[in-house]
C-alpha cells in the first residue's frame, strides 16, 4: 500500500547546516508517537534552492512548502497537515515576506514559491523532442493555425511589437521592429534565418532549447515567414551540436510529413520550408552579417551596417534574423497575446530570460526567470549559493562581450538596460559565478584570449587592439606591469569600442573596462605589490618555508616534481626559487602550514 503523505526534507548542504537533520529526527519521532509509520514516509531530498529560507520541508501530495522550520514546529505540521489535512499557514512560504516578485500573482492555487517561470523552456524536459504529436498535444502549431487563418501579416507584426519582445541574442533590438523593416522592404524574395551559432564560453541555452523543443523554433520561423512574406528559412547551427542537429532534422521531416512545412500549409495559400546549414564553429559567425556571409558560402566575416540584414541580408534580400531563444517566445506571444507577455518582466524588458548558470555555484543549470529578477535571487534562491560556503565575488554575464557584476549590484533587477548601465550586458545568457578564489585579472585575460583567437582579422582595431590588450594583461599578471599600463588598457579599449567593424571587436574590450572599474585595487595590487590575492597568477607567487613551524618531515621535498626543495631531516629544507615552478604541491602537502604562499 502506498503512503498517504510524503514529507520531503531538503538536505542540500545549506539546509543541512541550518538544522535540517534535527528536523528530520523530530519528524521521525512525532510519526512514531502518532503511530503514522504506515501512512507517512519521510524522505531526504536534494537541494530545493531557497537556501536562505532553510530548513525547507515539502509535504506531498498537498504540495505545502514550509520554510524556516524550527524543530518545535514539527508537531504542528504532523497534527494539522498530516492528521487533519489543514496546511499550517504561518509556516508556509509567503512571497510577500520575500522581496522577490512573482510573475503570475493573478493566478491562484499554483506553487507560488517557484522563482522560475518557463516560456522558452516550456516543453523542455516535458515532451519527447523526437515526437511531433507530443508537441501538437501541448498547443503546438496552434499559433501557426491562428496566424494563417485568423490574422493578417500586419496583425502578427503588431502583436509581436506590442509584446515588447527584444532580441535574446544579446543586443536586445525590438523583434517586432525588425520584422516590420523586412515586411516593408520591397522584394519578391525574402528570407527567415535562425541564429543558432551559440558560442560564448559557458552558454548552452540555445542548444538545450533546440534539443528539447525543436518544433517551437520551426513554428516560430514559419509564423515570421507569413508575417513578412518569406517562403524560405535557414537555421544556422554549429556542427558541434550534433544532437540538436539530429533532432532538428527529425522535426523538419515530421513537419513536412504533416504538411506543416512545405507547399500550402494546412490548406492555406502560404508555403514555407526550412533548411539547416552547419557552421564550423567560428564565434564571429554569431554576428549577423558574418553569419549571412557564411550561409552564402563565403568566408565568415562581418560587413559594415547599414544596410541592415532586415533590408539587405541573405543574397542581398531582406532577411529576418533572430536568435533561437527569441524564436521560442513567438508561438506563446501569438497564442496568449501581447498583453499577457508584456505583463511579465520590467518596463523596457518584457518576458523572461534563460541563463546558463555555471561556475562556483551549488546548483548549476539552465534557468528561466522573469526579466527584473535580481542576481541575488538567481544565485542564492535558485542557484543554492556559492560552492563550499565561499564568498561571492562577481558574476560574469554576456561572455567575452560582457562584463562583471560585483557584489554591490546583487540587488539590481536584471534587464537589458540595467546591465548596460553597470557596464555589462545581457549577452546570450551565460552567467558565470566567481568566488574569492578567482583572480579578476586572470579571468579578464581568459575572455580576451578568447576574443583574440576568434577575431576574424578584417578590421585593425579588433585584430591589433585585442592583441595589445592581451599583451598588457600578460605583463601585469607576470609581474612586469606598470601603472601607466592601466591608462593604456583603457585607451585601447575605448578605441576598439568606437572603431571596430562589428559587435565582436566593439565589445571585446568590455571585460577589461568593466573589471578595471570595479576591481581597480586588484589591478593595482598585481602591478605595485606583485600580489595576486586569489593566488592564481603563478608568476606572482612565491613559496617559502617557515622555519619556526617546520618539523622537517620532508614531505614537501618528496612532493616537489622538479626537485626545487633541498635539505634533509636534520638541517631542514629550503626552496630554490630559481627552480620552483609554483605548482603549489608543497603548499598543499604540508600538514603544519609551514609553507607560505605569497
Amino acid at each position, binding site marked *: 500500500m502506498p503512503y498517504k503523505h510524503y514529507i520531503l526534507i531538503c538536505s542540500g548542504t545549506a539546509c543541512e547546516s541550518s538544522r535540517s537533520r534535527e528536523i528530520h529526527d523530530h519528524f521521525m519521532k512525532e510519526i512514531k508517537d502518532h503511530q503514522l509509520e504506515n501512512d507517512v514516509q519521510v524522505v*531526504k531530498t536534494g537541494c530545493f534552492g531557497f537556501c536562505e529560507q532553510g530548513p525547507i520541508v515539502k509535504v506531498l501530495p498537498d504540495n505545502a512548502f514550509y520554510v524556516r522550520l524550527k524543530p518545535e514546529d514539527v508537531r504542528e505540521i504532523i497534527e494539522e497537515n498530516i492528521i487533519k489535512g489543514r496546511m499550517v499557514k504561518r509556516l508556509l512560504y509567503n512571497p510577500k515576506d520575500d522581496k522577490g516578485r512573482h510573475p503570475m500573482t493573478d493566478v491562484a492555487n499554483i506553487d507560488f514559491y517557484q522563482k522560475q517561470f518557463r516560456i522558452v523552456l516550456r516543453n523542455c524536459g516535458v515532451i519527447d523532442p523526437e515526437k511531433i504529436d507530443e508537441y501538437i498535444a501541448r498547443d503546438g502549431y496552434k499559433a501557426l493555425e491562428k496566424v494563417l487563418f485568423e490574422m493578417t501579416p500586419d496583425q502578427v507584426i503588431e502583436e509581436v511589437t506590442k509584446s515588447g519582445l527584444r532580441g535574446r541574442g544579446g543586443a536586445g533590438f525590438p523583434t517586432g521592429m525588425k520584422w516590420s523593416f523586412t515586411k516593408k522592404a520591397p522584394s519578391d524574395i525574402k528570407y527567415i534565418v535562425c541564429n543558432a551559432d551559440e558560442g560564448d564560453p559557458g552558454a548552452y541555452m540555445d542548444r538545450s532549447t533546440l534539443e528539447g523543443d525543436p518544433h517551437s523554433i520551426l513554428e516560430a520561423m514559419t509564423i515570421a515567414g507569413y508575417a513578412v512574406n518569406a517562403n524560405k528559412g535557414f537555421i544556422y547551427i554549429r556542427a558541434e551540436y550534433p544532437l540538436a542537429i539530429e533532432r532538428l532534422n527529425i522535426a523538419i521531416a515530421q513537419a513536412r510529413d504533416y504538411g506543416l512545412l512545405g507547399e500550402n500549409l494546412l490548406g*492555406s495559400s502560404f508555403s514555407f520550408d526550412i533548411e539547416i546549414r552547419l557552421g564550423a564553429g567560428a564565434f564571429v559567425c554569431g554576428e549577423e552579417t558574418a553569419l549571412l556571409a557564411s550561409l552564402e558560402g563565403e568566408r565568415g566575416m562581418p560587413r559594415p551596417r547599414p544596410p541592415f540584414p532586415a533590408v539587405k541580408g541573405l543574397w542581398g534580400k531582406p532577411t529576418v534574423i533572430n536568435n533561437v531563444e527569441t524564436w521560442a517566445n513567438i508561438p506563446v506571444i501569438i497564442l496568449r497575446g501581447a498583453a499577457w507577455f508584456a505583463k511579465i518582466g520590467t518596463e523596457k524588458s518584457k518576458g523572461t530570460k534563460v541563463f546558463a548558470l555555471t561556475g562556483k555555484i551549488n546548483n548549476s*543549470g539552465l534557468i528561466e526567470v522573469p526579466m527584473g529578477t535580481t542576481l541575488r535571487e538567481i544565485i542564492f534562491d535558485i542557484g543554492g549559493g556559492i560552492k563550499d560556503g565561499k564568498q561571492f565575488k562577481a558574476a560574469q554575464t554576456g561572455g567575452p562581450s560582457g562584463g562583471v557584476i560585483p557584489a554591490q549590484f546583487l540587488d539590481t533587477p536584471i534587464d537589458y538596460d540595467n546591465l548596460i548601465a553597470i557596464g555589462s550586458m545581457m549577452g546570450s545568457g551565460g552567467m558565470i559565478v566567481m568566488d574569492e578564489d578567482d583572480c579578476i585579472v586572470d579571468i579578464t585575460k581568459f575572455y580576451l584570449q578568447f576574443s583574440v583567437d576568434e577575431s576574424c582579422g578584417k578590421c585593425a582595431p579588433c585584430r591589433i587592439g585585442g592583441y595589445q590588450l592581451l599583451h598588457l594583461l600578460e605583463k601585469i599578471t607576470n609581474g612586469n606591469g606598470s601603472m601607466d599600463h592601466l591608462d593604456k588598457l583603457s585607451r585601447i579599449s575605448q578605441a576598439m569600442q568606437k572603431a571596430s567593424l562589428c559587435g565582436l571587436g566593439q565589445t571585446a574590450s568590455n571585460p577589461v573596462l568593466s573589471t578595471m572599474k570595479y576591481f581597480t585595487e586588484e589591478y593595482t595590487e598585481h602591478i605595485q605589490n606583485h600580489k595576486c590575492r586569489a593566488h592564481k597568477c603563478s608568476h606572482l607567487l612565491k613559496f617559502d618555508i617557515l622555519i619556526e613551524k617546520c618539523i622537517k618531515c620532508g614531505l614537501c621535498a618528496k612532493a616537489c616534481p622538479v626537485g626545487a626543495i633541498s635539505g634533509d631531516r636534520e638541517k631542514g629544507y629550503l626552496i630554490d626559487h630559481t627552480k620552483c615552478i609554483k605548482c603549489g604541491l608543497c603548499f598543499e602537502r604540508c600538514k603544519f602550514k609551514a609553507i607560505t604562499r605569497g
Partner: protein
Amino acid sequence: MSKLTLDDLRKMRESLKIDMDKRDSQQDTRIVVGMGTCGIAAGAKKTLNAFIDELNKRNLKNIAVKQTGCMGNCNVEPTVEIFMPDMPTTLYGNVTEDTARKIIQKHIIDKALLDDHIQDKPSIDIVKH
C-alpha cells in the same frame, strides 16, 4: 502521411490532448529520462538502458521508458521523472545505473520514495496554467 488540413490538425490535437490527459491522470506508469547533451554526457544512456534491463528482468509490463530534453538541473544529471498511479510525480537527480535499479524496486514496486535523490520541479507549466 498525407498533408494535414486545418480541420485535421485540430481534430488530431484534441485526440492527442485526451491521450495526454489520460497519461497525466496517471493511469499508466512512465519513466522519463532527460536526454539532452548534458544528460547524455552524465550517463543518461546507461541509465535508460538500466531501466529497460531491470524492467525486462523483472518482467514488468505496461511501463513506458521515454526520453525528453534537458530539464535544466545540470548539477544533478542524469535526471529522471516518474509518473505512476497512487504516487506523487517525482523528479530524481543523479540517477546512475545503480540508482535506476533502486528506483524500480523502491519507487515502482514498493511505492515509497527514494532518499537523497529527489529534486524540485523548477517551475509551473504555462501550457496548463
